[in-house]
């Protein structure tokens, strides 16, 4: 079989496996939701307070930017499991024993990632066509103008995303939660870097489009002062300038070259991924000192344990003096807390301790704002396993057959998560209490309850840690770091609405816990 056939076979099998999973259906639903937001004017391109007529070019570009912006962010988490699945299922071991080359494997997986993301782009392309008929501002349908932004704006970014997702799976320390958080910063850099310095380094093509539209806006809008935004906006509708029929990007060779460059970047990333790929060699997986030590010890243990067996050992098991206390909560709470904190290294505690001390030392506004937000962000990997751990490590059969498992185990897990948020942010709480800021304290408490509750719900629902890791990173950046009211989970940005915010967040936290219970109850009936 040629390398091309191997690549095609790997991509096809992986794509089919993914598209037959429930999560793919959810991803398409998310895409349709984005289409709905764009079609109903909730995602908008605006120049000062104006916009052009909804021509094929405008709609195609708007929807293509929407898909580029959002699907690249979320899509990364959707496709970053292709190699992991081969690792978990053991298929990787089978593939590793074939003549398949590392680049062929990497390109096959990359193409599968790209195909999944492209399918989402395709759904929104159909939405864009429908949107022009619904908007009915311009009767002329120009399919080239409508669809070319999907090909030249959205797909290059999807290729870049697919490549980064692949290399994050190949590099051991980026495989887990750290990679999930790191992607957000890679993604946000794709917006910030071109704006701040290198305009050509624009994987999303956002500046290229906005510059083109702004140039035309200057011709048709007399009082246009250069403002431009791509926004989610429910209330503030832009005024339509009927004379402004933007005809599209024009796609000069320079623009096309800049966009196609991202396919080249993606291919380079895939080659790099192939170079660092361990070919499912579990010995190489012991990349940390701790891992190496464990592996070495365990090799010896295997020999000892196998050699020391004796078939004639009599059974001596002390009967349990007391019956199991199936309602006992305290011991299970401690066990869940230990499980959540297990494996954290000394430096994790050192940073957490530093953030806690800083909460006592810094000015109150800093302490209860960015500091407590960062302290909670630091706990993201502690919380993200909540509710997902049982599926990830396939311990469901062992746990779900235990007596009174629901709600006991889930509540113990949640309580342990809350204990972590309280411990990590107690400095700010003490400061707020000493200052007599009841509303501030309520906001803090709401955050302390909301984060582990959301983690539990998302973990139980998805069975993976990725949704919470992605969501908290996004919320941390948009909320506390940019002082966005209602998204600032410390409550600090809500000003005089802080008490209302706190009550709402506590209600949402309760909803998350109840939701997690309901989903888990369904899972208990059929593992």
């Amino acid at each position, binding site marked *: 079989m040629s390398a091309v056939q191997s690549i095609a076979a790997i991509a096809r099998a992986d794509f089919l496996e993914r598209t037959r999973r429930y999560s793919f259906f959810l991803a398409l639903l998310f895409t349709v939701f984005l289409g709905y937001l764009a079609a109903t004017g909730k995602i908008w391109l605006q120049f000062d307070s104006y916009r052009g007529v909804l021509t094929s070019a405008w709609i195609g570009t708007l929807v293509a930017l929407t898909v580029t912006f959002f699907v690249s962010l979320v899509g990364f988490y959707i496709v970053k499991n292709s190699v992991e699945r081969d690792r978990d299922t053991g298929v990787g071991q089978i593939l590793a024993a074939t003549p398949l080359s590392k680049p062929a494997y990497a390109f096959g997986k990359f193409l599968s990632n790209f195909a999944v993301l492209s399918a989402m782009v395709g759904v929104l392309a159909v939405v864009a066509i429908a949107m022009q008929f619904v908007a009915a501002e311009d009767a002329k349908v120009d399919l080239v103008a409508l669809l070319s932004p999907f090909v030249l704006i959205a797909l290059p970014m999807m290729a870049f995303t697919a490549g980064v997702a692949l290399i994050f799976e190949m590099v051991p320390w980026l495989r887990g939660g750290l990679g999930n958080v790191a992607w957000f910063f890679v993604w946000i850099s794709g917006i910030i870097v071109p704006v701040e310095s290198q305009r050509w380094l624009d994987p999303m093509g956002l500046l290229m489009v906005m510059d083109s539209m702004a140039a035309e806006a200057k011709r048709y809008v007399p009082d246009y002062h250069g403002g431009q935004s791509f926004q989610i906006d429910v209330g503030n509708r832009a005024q339509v300038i009927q004379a402004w029929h933007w005809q599209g990007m024009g796609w000069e060779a320079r623009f096309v070259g800049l966009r196609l460059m991202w396919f080249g970047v993606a291919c380079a990333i895939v080659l790099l991924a192939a170079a660092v790929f361990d070919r499912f060699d579990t010995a190489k997986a012991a990349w940390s000192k701790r891992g190496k030590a*464990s*592996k070495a*010890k*365990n*090799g010896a*243990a*295997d020999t*000892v*344990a*196998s050699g*020391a*067996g*004796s*078939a*004639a*050992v*009599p*059974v*001596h*098991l*002390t*009967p*349990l*003096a*007391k*019956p*199991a*206390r*199936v*309602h*006992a909560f305290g*011991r*299970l709470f*401690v*066990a869940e807390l*230990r*499980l959540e904190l*297990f*494996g954290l290294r000394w430096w994790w505690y050192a940073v957490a301790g530093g953030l806690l001390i800083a909460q006592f030392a810094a000015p109150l506004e800093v302490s209860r704002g960015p500091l407590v937000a960062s302290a909670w962000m630091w706990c993201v990997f502690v919380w993200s396993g909540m509710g997902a*751990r049982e599926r990830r*490590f*396939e*311990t*469901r*059969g*062992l*746990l*779900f*057959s*235990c*007596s*009174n*498992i629901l709600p006991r*185990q889930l509540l113990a897990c949640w309580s342990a998560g809350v204990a972590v948020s309280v411990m990590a942010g107690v400095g700010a709480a003490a400061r707020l209490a000493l200052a007599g800021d009841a509303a501030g304290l309520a906001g803090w408490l709401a955050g302390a309850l909301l984060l582990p509750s959301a983690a539990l719900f998302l973990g139980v629902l998805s069975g993976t840690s990725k949704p919470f890791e992605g969501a908290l990173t996004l919320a941390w950046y948009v909320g506390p770091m940019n002082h966005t009211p209602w998204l600032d989970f410390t409550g600090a940005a809500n000003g005089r609405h802080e008490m209302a915010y706190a009550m709402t967040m506590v209600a949402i936290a309760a909803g998350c816990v109840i939701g997690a219970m309901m989903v888990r109850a369904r899972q*208990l*009936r*059929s*593992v």
Partner: protein
Amino acid sequence: MRLLVEGMSKRYRGGVQALRGVNLALKPGVLGLLGPNGAGKSTLMRILATITQPSAGRVLWNDSDIAHEPDGLREVLGYLPQDFGVYPNLSAIEFLDYLAAVKGIPADAARRRISELLALVNLADAAKRPLGGYSGGMRQRVGIAQALLNDPKLLIVDEPTAGLDPEERVRFRNLLSELSGERIVILSTHIVSDVEAVATEIAILGHGQLLAHGAPEALLSRVEGKTWEVVAPSGELPALRTKYLVSSTAHRSDGVHARVVADAAPNGAARALEPTLEDAYLAVLAAKRNGAVAGVAA
């Protein structure tokens, strides 16, 4: 102590019928559950372990329906699933201690029990090492230990000897025999010799149906006087297989020695043999394939 399975059926989404009208009545002892791959053994075990609901029928544990009151059974249940995972960063002691907490076992009793169990499954030396580095067989032994944590009255073990070396397999069989006195043990496997060694009762499943259930002797009596050794040239083996149920063969200098299950001697030179459980098991499956479901021996 009584476990009753009444008219149990299970149909999965997508239409796969895993179980069809299974009836069983179990008392203390070891039930060996035999059947080919896909026979419905694991589905039956999962339903008995309360983690899957039957589509029809019911399971009564000491007269209470486990679909409505699962916790009554779960308090005294030990379950080793066919496929299970562990938390790789925990040691065997830490993992078992976590499960002991989930099962509500007091800390001091759990500590003693875990220590005894780890010695019993021959893991005392590796008890403090992370589970992530355990071999498949070592992990399986951790699974066996966790199933015994709460001193279960009903012990359900699904393919427990998978991945164990021969020595550990024998050790595990002995363990099951010792444990079976005052509890119900259900051992699901497709390795007939495991069942032969420990089972006080045997049930055979095929295509989701209970094909046979009874004492090993009752099952053996079905093929009493029907097991033969036939010596034939190796070229005649395919024809022999077509005509008779051949349970095993061995090549010798005088030809192939075939073990055949048949109502009458295949030829005048055939020698009568003592039947084994494997002969009986294969005969039951062959009868099902030929359309005649073997009558259930009590």
